[in-house]
């Protein structure tokens, strides 16, 4: 993110009131917002301008947002944050698996939305700097040195098994973003184990036992109920 250039945001939302509200609020926070009320308009804006972030409502009049995600991905590298009234976990998962970077369920607070946008932008900056691979991660007291395969909490080294380490780094590579159960299972155990959700529960429990001071109230390894996990980054 260039300090002088404002952040270009595409807001895809067909509800007028919500669109006005978001546009006004985001503008107040220094974002340059283009609003689109249909999938068609959104696709044209994404193809023709350099965007930094896309806010996408799934329920559009002309196309299902879920099908729009891969199309937007084709023409833009901007992170996509899904905002949707759909409460069903299945649709959130489908949107994330289709290539969305994050999601927020309506109604949401402004603070929450701004935090998600910042996280998405940070990731984009990292990508823009062409850091080929994440080597270090640090948040609060948790420090991960991926190259050296070392993990520490509050300066105290933590001993992890290979699978625990793979799980933690899979989350750290996209810290701050939701990663679905399926994505994690595929990444850590391989594509044949996408349905073996109990692997994930057991290893997440072990990992939290080693990293969190109170595993029932995690500070780092956050649960997205019914969808996946997120490594806290803000």
């Amino acid at each position: 993110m260039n300090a002088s250039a404002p952040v270009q945001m595409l807001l895809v939302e067909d509800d007028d009131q919500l669109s006005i509200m978001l546009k006004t609020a985001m503008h107040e926070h220094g974002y340059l917002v283009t609003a689109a009320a249909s999938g068609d308009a959104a696709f044209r804006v994404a193809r023709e301008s350099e965007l930094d972030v896309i806010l996408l409502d799934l329920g559009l009049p002309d196309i299902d947002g879920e099908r729009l995600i891969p199309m937007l991905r084709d023409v833009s590298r901007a992170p996509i944050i899904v905002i949707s009234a759909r409460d069903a976990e299945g649709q959130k998962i489908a949107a994330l698996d289709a290539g969305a970077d994050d999601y927020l369920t309506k109604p949401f607070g402004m603070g929450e939305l701004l935090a998600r946008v910042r996280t998405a932008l940070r990731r984009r900056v990292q990508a823009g700097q062409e850091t080929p691979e994440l080597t270090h991660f640090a948040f609060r007291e948790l420090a991960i040195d991926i190259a050296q395969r070392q993990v520490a909490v509050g300066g105290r080294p933590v001993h992890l098994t290979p699978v625990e380490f793979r799980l933690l780094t899979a989350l750290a590579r996209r810290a701050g973003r939701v990663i679905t159960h399926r994505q994690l299972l595929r990444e850590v155990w391989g594509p044949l184990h996408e349905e073996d959700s109990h692997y994930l529960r057991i290893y997440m429990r072990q990992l939290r036992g080693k990293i969190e001071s109170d595993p029932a109230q995690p500070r780092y390894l956050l649960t997205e109920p019914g969808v996946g996990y997120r490594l806290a980054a803000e």
Partner: protein
Amino acid sequence: MIQTQRTLLSVLFILFVVVLAHLLEQAQFGRSNVVMVYMLAVVVVAVQMGLWPAVLTSLLGVPLFHYFDVPPYFQLDASELEHTFSLGVMLATALIVSSVASRLRQQALVSEERANQNAALYALASELAEELPDAEVLALTARHVARAFRLPAVPPHATVDAIRAAVPGGHADSHLDAMLRLAAQALERSRLRERLRGSERRAQQEALRSSVLGAVSHDLRTPLASIIGASSSLVDSGEAYAPDVRGRLGRVIHEEALQMKRMVENLLDFARLRSSQQEVQADWQALEEMVGSALATIRRRTRDHRLVVDVPAELPLLRCNGVLIERVLTNLVENAVKFSPPGSTVTLRARRCGDQLELRVLDEGAGIEPARRESIFEPFTRFGSQEGSGLGLAICRGIVEAHGGSVVAEDAEGGGACFVLRLPIGGEPPALPSGDDNDRGIE
């Protein structure tokens, strides 16, 4: 076969009669009396054995009588006329008696058959009197028909007429008619029952809908009134207000909107629970994870209570729908927070009890009177004028029961309410792949 046996029997009987008659004749009985013995023999044979043995008895009886009992003994030289006359009388007797007897026998057979049929009908009727699914009615009927008509098996057909077609000569059998009529009536009854149940269900839904409407219109209007009041003040004359007044109005709008959001969520959950009677999608879940996200939700909403979590780390994974059970935990803890004074403690405690997981949510409030401990789980019941849609506990119970568990209200030790949630653990998760994670050197 039976005929031959009967003939042999009648021959033996005649021999016996001949000997008896001869003895009587020797004992100087009148000859007419001796004739009566032969007559008796013919009658007995006619009654017991039917026409042809009786005719045989007559034909043999006459010459035997003349041979043994009419002097000159052991000769057949009596006059032709007398001979023929005796034979005629005996034959006539045999015919009359045997035809009467056979008619009687026939009637006895018919009434026995009828009694059997009635018994079969009664058996079928009493089995069909129960409330059965259509397929069961037809299968039962097919079984009874097979038994009544001594058929090896009548396969259960899809309709009553198909069963009739499976019975040879079934199109004109009154007994079969009666049985099939019973089956048709049973089917008709079940259709009527279904229709009745449908209209009962509709009436219930109607009642529910009106109570939902009542609750919603009241509970949504109250926060809406605050929101519209506060926001219209800001829109109309916001610039005139001091910053702290604007802030206060903004907070009112925010708080009330959150309250509405919670109610709408509850209503949607409730509607979803009622509309989807399908099985819950279960998955292996860690309890502390669900507790963690439930508490995270509640912490965002309340800061006045101390929340104590007592969940042992060694609890097994639980097979359930994580999102729904988290919803139950959120509702129960939120309920406890709502009905206990600020500054008090709400405790969530989990234990394993055999193949169940037992969760207790305890508060330090006033507790729940025993009389209300069941009714609070009904939709749209609530305490006094407390806010909320009165749906939270109904949703909890719906979700828990869909998981094969239970939730009840009890007294907490030392006052306060205690909600006890029991969930089946659901067995053991499949084993982890072995050798995948040998613990060497990541430090």
